[in-house]
């Protein structure tokens, strides 16, 4: 867990860190002893007051589920059972190790995650940059790109399933003109995964673009003016002003998208139609979340499902550590 601590503090600009400490030591030369005391109390206690609501609600509604899930993962428990189940140690975890469906789900989660997240974030960044331009009807465009996030997923699924219908879908008709015929978007592994990732990309690009846009709004215009005086092209300004200035936000979206990709659930479930959480007839696109849901809700093996959940959590922490290393290394290169 220590890994992502550094990750987040690394995300903040180097300039901001030394500042608060100097100010705290130097400043409060205010008159009146009680005022100074009050002031010190304010500086000391207020951070805790600000983060308290989160931790209070989390302690009430988040901590217990987290620990409970861990406890379940060490037991054999079935949904609907009244008792507390029987202790099985790490059996639920070791069983996963030689379970072909778990590995398949893990691989699918990884490939789906990569092909849906990487293009999505790149496109979101570009779109946010364009939306940051002075445009007519800018407000409309900004809101319109969030429409996929608000559109009912059931309605969207109806559209996408028809687009990707292997027999009469628009996409296969289009590809037919280029001599590519009869791609089985429903049952072949890679086509199905591409179709699903296109739904994911469609739904979440605008979402991330808006997050980037908010960050770009806070970039001081002087930086652009200075760069322009310097003769930097728009593209150059984007690379050397915009991107570095919103780096913490980019870092944020990478973390959140990674988590989202690891927990990918709704899109493959709905794309599968009636096949349900098995993710295709041969598990072509069953993700870890679907596998967990299948175990926990369809079959009621809560212990095994909880083990999958904890494995997902550990994988995320591992990915977080790797991302951190990459970011630090690249930062060091840039710095030198």
């Amino acid at each position: 867990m220590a890994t992502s601590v550094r990750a987040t503090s690394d995300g903040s600009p180097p300039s901001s860190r030394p500042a608060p400490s100097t100010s705290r030591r130097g400043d409060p030369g205010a008159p009146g002893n009680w005022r100074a005391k009050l002031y010190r109390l304010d500086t000391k206690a207020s951070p805790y007051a600000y983060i308290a609501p989160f931790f209070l609600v989390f302690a009430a509604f988040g901590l217990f589920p987290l620990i409970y899930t861990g406890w379940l993962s060490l037991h054999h428990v079935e949904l609907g059972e009244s008792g507390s189940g029987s202790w099985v140690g790490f059996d639920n975890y070791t069983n996963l190790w030689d379970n072909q469906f778990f590995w398949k789900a893990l691989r699918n989660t990884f490939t789906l995650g990569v092909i849906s997240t990487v293009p999505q974030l790149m496109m979101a960044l570009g779109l946010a940059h364009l939306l940051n331009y002075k445009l007519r009807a800018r407000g409309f465009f900004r809101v319109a790109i969030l429409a996929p996030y608000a559109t009912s997923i059931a309605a969207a699924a109806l559209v996408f399933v028809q687009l990707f219908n292997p027999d009469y879908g628009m996409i296969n008709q289009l590809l037919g003109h280029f001599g590519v015929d009869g791609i089985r978007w429903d049952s072949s592994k890679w086509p199905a995964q591409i179709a699903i990732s296109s739904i994911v990309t469609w739904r979440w690009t605008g979402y991330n673009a808006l997050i980037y846009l908010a960050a770009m709004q806070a970039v001081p215009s002087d930086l652009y003016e200075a760069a322009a005086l310097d003769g930097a092209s728009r593209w150059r300004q984007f690379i050397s002003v915009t991107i570095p200035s919103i780096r913490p936000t980019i870092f944020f979206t990478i973390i959140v998208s990674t988590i989202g990709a690891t927990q990918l659930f709704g899109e493959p479930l709905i794309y599968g139609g009636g096949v349900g959480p098995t993710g295709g007839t041969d598990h072509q696109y069953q993700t870890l979340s679907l596998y967990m849901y299948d175990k926990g809700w369809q079959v009621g093996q809560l212990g095994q499902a909880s083990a999958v959940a904890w494995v997902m959590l550990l994988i995320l922490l591992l990915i977080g550590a790797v991302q951190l290393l990459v970011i630090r290394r690249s930062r060091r290169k840039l710095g030198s």
Partner: protein
Amino acid sequence: MRTSGRTRKAAVIAVAGLATCATLITGCSSSDDNGSKGSDGKSSSSEQITLHIGDFNEFGYNDKTGAKLFSEYEALHPNIKIVEDNVTDGQQYWDSLKLHLQQGSGLDDIQAIEVGYIAEAIQPQLASKFVDFKSIKGFSADDWVSYKEKQATTADGQVIGVGTDIGPTAICYRTDFFQQAGLPTDPQQVAALWNGDWAKFVQVGEQFKAKAPSGVAFTDSAGGLFNAVLSSQPTQFSDQTGKLVYDSSPGVKTAWDLSAKAVKEGLTAKLQQFDSNNTWSAAFKTGKFATVACPSWMTGLVSTNSGPANKGKWDIAQPPQAGNWGGSFLAVTKASKHQAEAAALAQWLTAAAQEVKIFQKFGNIPSNKGGLSDPAVQNTTNDYFGPAGKPAPTGKIFATTAQSIQPAPIGPDDGTVKDIITKNGLLDMEQRGTSSEKAWSNVKAQVKDKLGE
């Protein structure tokens, strides 16, 4: 330091927002009538009580779109008000019901249970949450067809549900396609083609295929064929004790072999029944297949999906062997504060007279013997099916089939195995050309992964 108007406004909005939310949250909890179901304790016959009934899809009881049975009952019992808690998707309904039962909260007085889940519901941990109908005045399991109440009976003899409908299964077929393929079109002659043996049904499929109109498969799906064949078999997935024996069950083997053969010979349209993407329902209208195994409740679906343009092209014939597909139960929860009243309502809703009314409105075949033999059921015809002027005698066909259904033992894991076989085994063969042997070993691996056996 001047406070700008904007920040003061923000502060006002913030405080007002928080206050509103706090008020709303506490306000919601004080208006207590909606959430806590089956209100407070004691019940005398004159006291006003509300009975909540939880069900899925369309049970046809309600006053708005159904047979108005609730208002009829409320008129008979002025002190009772009935509220329906309906969820469209049966799977979603059951998933949350299991959690509600486990925790003993969020339950309605009456909960409907689909036959696919009833074997799970009679397992000790869930059965203990339901009222035993044997302890209820006026209950007699013999009122229903023999296999119905048996399915809702636990190992130690409790009866946790009363039967609503059953799904005797016949064969719906397209007379126009049959004619083009040189097959008879009259229901009697068609039934004679395959009478007594599902293998003959597949043979008719081979004949059909030889002269079939282009783009028309013999039957809609291997999964549908598997279900229909299996439902007529005396041994299905489980033995008398509820233990899973699918791997050695002769019934499963028969159904699998015939469905696999149909796939291999290209007799199926490679569709998945009830897929949420509508491909299956669209194929009715576009005429992609000539037959579909048709439980009584599916006739409405065939006519809706095929549309008025195809009226008169479908007909219904007796199946090779009689089987049951679908049907439900009403159970009374122990969490109910009004168990006696709820049980009385459940019994009334499943009594012969009411089941006949539901049949007349929706075509659900009564599981209550009195309802099944009622002339209103027996003489019903459906003019969507059969040639013009000669509507199909659906009441007679389904009631006859219902009489000859043989009860088969069921177990709690049947539904899981059935899903794996139809959605992963057979559909995989249809869509990806997997061989029968490979598909079966996949099925076994998945059953082992999910159920550990």
